[in-house]
């Protein structure tokens, strides 16, 4: 998952606004359990991913997390003993004990899995469409070394991925009669050594670029005026946070999985879902001045 500059509103927005908007979306996905609200959020995030030209990256992130999400959804009915609507009695199943599969536990497992996917999608969007260099600049004053380590990790990922691809190709090129070092351990050791060598090279570059100087902490990037996209994403981030807090406090998206499913559909729930989806999609409506 690599940041690539594209002509989209999210790429054109300053990193602070873009990151806050992505985090606000993730917070909304964590705050609500109501399936309707989650469906609206999924719709909004999907539109945003396409609008940011990062649909493929977001889909890849979700696909990567899908086994974990399925695991969560699968395990929940086995470990939760709540729920009144029994679908299947499985009897004694070590190590879970007496297991009754209930509709409530199944649904709640699915809700947990979907929330996990939505949070991952938000972070995938952040990684693919928010400039990490600007983020580094934002955080360097707070925690310079942590921010730098994070940025370097991001930089090393594609380098190491390319190294690994090259090694795999080299492995395929080995002649059939050669004394093959087929064992995964040998390949792993070589890959680790390569990663260390790469890390040392990058660290040497950092040294000669003067990153260790005490002046590095004080530095700030140029102050650019707020563009329409900065304002749009910042405003939508504020709207998302406000909707999340107000919706959660006032119970607009009440959802109680146990003992019996209670997902009340009120006009407030519909309004909240639609507003969240709108706040996710709206910043992409204006595409003026997106190319840099």
């Amino acid at each position: 998952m690599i940041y690539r500059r594209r002509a989209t509103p999210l790429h054109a927005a300053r990193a602070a606004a873009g990151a806050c908007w992505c985090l606000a979306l993730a917070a909304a996905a964590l705050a609500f359990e109501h399936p309707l609200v989650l469906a609206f959020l999924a719709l909004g995030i999907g539109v945003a991913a396409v609008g940011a030209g990062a649909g493929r990256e977001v889909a890849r992130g979700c696909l990567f997390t899908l086994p974990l999400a399925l695991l969560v959804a699968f395990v929940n009915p086995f470990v939760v003993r709540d729920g009144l609507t029994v679908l299947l009695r499985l009897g004694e199943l070590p190590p879970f004990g007496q297991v009754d599969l209930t509709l409530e536990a199944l649904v709640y497992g699915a809700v947990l899995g979907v929330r996990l996917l939505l949070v991952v999608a938000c972070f995938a969007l952040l990684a693919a469409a928010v400039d990490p260099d600007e983020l580094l600049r934002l955080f360097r004053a707070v925690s310079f070394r942590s921010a730098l380590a994070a940025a370097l990790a991001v930089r090393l990922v594609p380098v190491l991925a390319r190294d690994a691809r090259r090694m795999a190709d080299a492995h395929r090129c080995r002649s059939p009669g050669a004394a093959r070092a087929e064992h995964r351990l040998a390949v792993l050791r070589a890959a680790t050594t390569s990663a260390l060598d790469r890390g040392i090279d990058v660290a040497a570059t950092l040294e000669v670029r003067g990153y260790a100087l005490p002046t590095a902490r004080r530095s700030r990037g140029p102050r650019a005026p707020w563009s329409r996209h900065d304002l749009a994403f910042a405003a939508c981030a504020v709207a998302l946070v406000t909707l999340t807090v107000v919706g959660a406090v006032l119970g607009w998206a009440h959802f109680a999985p146990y003992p019996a499913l209670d997902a009340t559909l009120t006009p407030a729930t519909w309004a909240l879902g639609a507003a969240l989806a709108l706040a996710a999609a709206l910043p992409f409506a204006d595409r003026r001045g997106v190319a840099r």
Partner: protein
Amino acid sequence: MTDVLRLDGVTYAYAGAAAPALRDVSLQVGEGELVVLAGGSAGGKSTLLRVAAGLVPHFHGGTFAGRAVVGGLDTRRHGPGELAAVAASLFQDPETQVVLTTVRAELAFPLENRGADALVVARAVEEVALALGIERLLQRSVAELSGGELQRVALGAALVARPALLLLDEPTSQLDPVAGDELLWLLRRLNEEWGTTVLLAEHRLERCLAHADRLVVLQDGAVVCDDEPRGALRWCAEHAPVLETPAARLLRRAGLGPPPRGVREARATLRAQGLLPVPAPPVQPGPTGRSVASPWRRRRRSGAPSALAARGVWQELRGGPAILRGVDLALQPGERVALLGRNGAGKSTLLRHLAGLDRPTRGRVEAAGRVALLLQNPGDYLLAERAGEEASAQALRLVGLDHVAQRDPRDLSGGERQRLALAVVLDGPPPAALLLDEPTRGMDRGAKAVLIDHLRRLAARETAVLVATHDVEFAAALAERAVLLADGVVIADGAVAELLSGGWHFSTETARVLNGAGRALTPDEGAALLRGNLSMLEVSSEP
């Protein structure tokens, strides 16, 4: 002239190394000088540059004796970060020298680290981008850049703070001849206009000697020659002929002097002697736009089976450009072919298709047997802790490495590692074709000569050899046929003597000196031609 760099009796050994990498090195580099460091692999060039950058001993550790002063700062007391204000470094691999994700951020990074004002940073970034011609890349992600573009960006990051001293370790090793020449002209311009002192380590002296004020030769970590280019070339002719440039060897073998720094001086010498040949007529293209009939084309027409053939091979990226566009190429058994072309022409992609690593989107590849491919980085093949575990004794013998079977591959020299990787891909039944992708990167001339010898022997056993390379001197010494690729299309395919003798960038130094006369590519061929002309002149001038 003020010294920007001064080394006094510097001796340095890396931690755990059996022998020092530098031995009692004393060297002064004055303000505004362009000094070239030469010498064989593991001679100490890179270590010397790391001393000047302060990475030795602060970053690499080890044992350091003597004194190094860079821009008035003693490296024992000042680390690489402080020295970076005076000396900027550019190492071999651009991949690891770009640390941020966009070009603009990368260029701004060194100044931001020094706490420079935002306006100063913005102006400096714009200026350096304009100076290096990378202004259109400023908003691009570094992940999208080619090797040549990355190298320029890394150079920009090194130059953005206007350092007094620029340290470069084989900066052209990954560039095609055109991009390499451009980079060297750029360095000369920076040197002349900005007064930047340049210390440049380079194997291919013919590329950079014309721009140099001095040549320093390192051997086994010691300075064995430090002279202006002509004096240094005289020293090389006597003590280290392997370092001589082709033009210098050409004139010396023809009995002419003084040693030229580059093509222009060599031509001036020939002109003064009345020996400068007139330009050779361009090669007449055949009906397909390729060069006229040559031995392998005759063989192809005679119906001899190909060892390896690409038939209308296309590689079209989904949502992207076509990398290969209908490539037709056939190699006969035992044929030695050089594949040339600028960065991004599609050479590596073609090799991958020929070796079966990738599948064409259209067209097909036919092989008479196994196809062995040696990719660019030999280290990728070496996984075991002993060379003998990587390949059989027979394969090691084939590449002349049977004596290193017990050694760790990581302890071998660059040339030996390359040959060990070659042994890995050659192990087993003889391949119908051997493909090599940039095998001479970072190799000194001695190692190249050994590699050429091994490849010739393989070809003599009926293995077709195809080498993708930017090194035209290597191509001329090895190949009998050359293929020029541009934008995924074969634009020329002919005898190496024809293809590499008439051009400027894709041409050997000897051919450029001689205007392509007699299709001479190597100094020996050129010297024979000149001696013939000399004797004709002598006969005609007799009363």
